[in-house]
């Protein structure tokens, strides 16, 4: 198998995730798009690990999975707090820091 087919798949998923982050206004859906991005990075790490026959790629994919889990936990807590304070998770309304 070509290395590029995995890398291009990951690039497509990454760009779909970027589109989602930019276009979505619901906080939950933005978090899901971030999951898409992190997952595409995992595909890259494992593909490069298989290319160099080094276990480091897999180990770092596992670390990325752990970091993504932590990110979702904190992100959901923030979204819940926002919902509790404003009764809405529309991110375009979260502009308190706007100058």
């Amino acid at each position: 198998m070509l290395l590029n087919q995995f890398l291009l798949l990951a690039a497509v998923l990454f760009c779909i995730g970027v589109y989602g982050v930019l276009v979505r206004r619901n906080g939950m859906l933005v978090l899901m798009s971030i999951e898409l991005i992190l997952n595409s990075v995992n595909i890259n790490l494992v593909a490069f690990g298989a290319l160099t026959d080094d276990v480091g790629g897999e180990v770092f994919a596992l670390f990325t999975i752990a970091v993504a889990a932590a990110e979702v936990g904190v992100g959901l807590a923030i979204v819940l707090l926002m919902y509790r304070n404003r009764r809405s998770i529309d991110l375009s309304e979260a502009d308190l820091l706007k100058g």
Partner: protein
Amino acid sequence: MSALLAAVSADSDQFVAQNVFFGVIALLMIVSALKVVTTSNVVHAALWLVLVLAGAAAQFILLGSEFVAVTQVLVYIGAVVVLFLFGVMLTRASMGDDETAAGEKRVMAAVVAGLLLAVMSVALIDTFADDRVVIDEPQLVSTVADSIFSQYIVPFEAVSVLLLAALIGSIVVARKD
């Protein structure tokens, strides 16, 4: 998309079965990912995300990384998606938006994502023109374990502390006072 198909068909004479499976799963993943970012129902988006994550697990198996594939299913599909569904349940009142996202914003986001994809594709095709992944045998779980607990022990402990900090942090943030 067409570059992906071209890359798949380039060496289809050697690994027919792998390439067919790769193509089918990749197509499923891309369609599901597009559904995740376009559907207006939050629960449906979470369920489409399950398909993308399962497809990624299948790609890991194709690359011979069975432990990462199992962890992907356990952590992502088992825990993260359930967490998302809980989040949707707790913030239910604000569902069904995103129809309101401005068309102009949508076009700009599509342009940004498309440009990013074009740049990355050109760079990847230029750099890794025909590097091949040869998987003789799957990476053993014992190899991964040995590596984590010897060479990568410090990052492993750092990730443990990070998880603890995230746990405490999310409890503190979401706690009712």
